[in-house]
């Protein structure tokens, strides 16, 4: 089967799920349910492509297929930021009530953290992937412990408010945030589009990429910034879905078996729309809201992550 056919199948599936989600049991309710569902689909689409794109880019510039920004501590940082806001300013502070401020603070803190952290970690040479993974896990656990420590200290009523921020959920996506987030994501895509072919060359390794005239170190910096912004925006929009990027990126590598980033990234984006919209439909109509999508994704993704780790250690050992 050629890659073009595969892509059409995926796109067909994605469209089918979107239609299913929007129109299933709508019962002609075009005034209330219809715009709400559209908004949710839009949020899922934006989050999905932001995560898919940033994960593939991140994995190409760091030359690995296991680590993602979320696994490397960014999700834990998001939780810590929200906890700190509740801890120091309380649930009635402007940083909680005004979603724009909250969004801005969370995104900028995550971008700054990612830039400093990744620059130190991926600066020179190739470090063993297990070392990087260990560092990511330790940083994640460290941030997580501080978060837990602060959470047990705050008022239980405040904690209830905080709790809703801790799990990714499309049920309470704030429509005020979709537009700023959408604009950032679209701008990032337009910028990233021009570097698509350079990413192909980068996957040949640093020396070959420089030989072929790619300004490697500069491009790594820019792509790290781009990928941090996208992942920060999507996390701030719906909350942390740690293993999601990992699943869609790796499924895309396996399904398309190509070096071309235009195909890999498009594939990962369409797959994430299928997973999010299809998964959310299951959650809402089949499980009738008894669980959340992020729980399912993290369960499936966690298992897949362990599988990838075992595979990697077997091939390198």
């Amino acid at each position, binding site marked *: 089967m050629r890659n073009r056919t595969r892509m059409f199948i995926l796109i067909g599936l994605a469209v089918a799920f979107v239609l299913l989600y929007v129109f299933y049991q709508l019962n002609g309710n075009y005034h209330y349910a219809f715009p709400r569902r559209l908004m949710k689909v839009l949020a899922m689409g934006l989050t999905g492509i932001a995560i898919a794109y940033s994960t593939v880019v991140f994995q190409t510039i760091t030359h690995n297929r296991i680590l993602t920004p979320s696994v490397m501590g960014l999700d834990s940082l998001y939780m810590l930021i929200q906890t700190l806001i509740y801890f120091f300013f309380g649930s009635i502070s402007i940083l909680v009530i005004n979603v724009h401020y909250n969004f801005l603070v969370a995104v900028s803190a995550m971008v700054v953290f990612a830039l400093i952290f990744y620059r130190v970690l991926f600066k020179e040479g190739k470090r063993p992937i297990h070392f990087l993974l260990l560092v990511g896990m330790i940083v994640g656990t460290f941030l997580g412990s501080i978060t837990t420590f602060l959470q047990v200290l705050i008022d239980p009523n405040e904690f209830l408010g905080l709790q809703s921020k801790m799990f990714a959920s499309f049920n309470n996506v704030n429509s005020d945030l979709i537009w700023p987030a959408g604009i950032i994501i679209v701008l990032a895509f337009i910028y990233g589009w021009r570097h698509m072919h350079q990413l*192909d060359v980068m996957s040949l390794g640093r020396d070959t990429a*420089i030989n072929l005239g790619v300004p490697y170190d500069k491009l790594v910096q820019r792509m790290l910034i781009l990928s941090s912004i996208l992942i920060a925006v999507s996390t701030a929009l719906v909350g942390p879905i740690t293993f999601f990027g990992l699943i869609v990126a790796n499924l895309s590598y396996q399904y398309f078996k190509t070096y071309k980033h235009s195909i890999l990234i498009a594939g990962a984006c369409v797959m994430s729309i299928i997973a999010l919209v299809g998964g959310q439909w299951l959650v809402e109509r089949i499980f009738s809201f008894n669980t959340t999508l992020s729980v399912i994704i993290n369960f499936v993704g966690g298992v897949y992550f362990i599988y990838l780790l075992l595979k990697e250690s077997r091939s390198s050992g």
Partner: protein
Amino acid sequence: MIQVKEITKFFGKKPVVQDVSVDIASGKITSFIGPNGAGKSTLLSMVSRLLNADTGEVLLDKADVRRWKSDDFAKRVSILKQSNFMNVRLTIRELVSFGRFPYSKGNLKPEDEEKVDEAILYMNLQEIQHNYLDELSGGQRQRAFIAMVIAQDTEYILLDEPLNNLDMKHSVQIMKILRKLVDELGKTVVIVLHDINFASVYSDHIVALKDGRVVRNGPTNDIINSHALKEIYDMDIPVQEQDGCRICVYFNS
């Protein structure tokens, strides 16, 4: 014209290349030889801007290599390192097509395809051009990478130990191709070699390094003699002449 001017490179506190100045002669094969750890590969990496020198400069057409725009430089100078780690699975033809990247920026035009065909033909890879790199033997892989560099069509071709892990037959094959590139297409080849006899038989010019410094630099015949070799390798190496080639018999010295 490539000129290396007083470059020095430290790895940590250890100087790996010290105060090296070399002019690379155009239209010739220049070999970098010397014992392990002499700084040959590091020097080559700095010439090809894979590494930045700590002090000193490398000039291509009188302009510092760090000032060159990456893709303009890639149209003039190509470099092939010894280990080519890759995360992706490519066929030979896909790899060779990457050699056109400085020109095509990823969208191959008919003239790019033509150059790719030529390079594949030059390296005699047309039969296996759709095979994946990980299915190839070491010699075929090396030829595929050299084909990529040929497709890149640069005036200067720099190679870091291209004979590593190759048997005699493939080593000779590759050296003959490099000779052809210089004699027929007028390229300039700079090559790091471990085997002194390949350097002796195939190169026009030899730069000998030891402990990060240039100890000898001159035409091949000035370097391949017992006196100079003693200075470079600290070994008494008899040199014998056979069919006009100087062969160093170092095996029991």
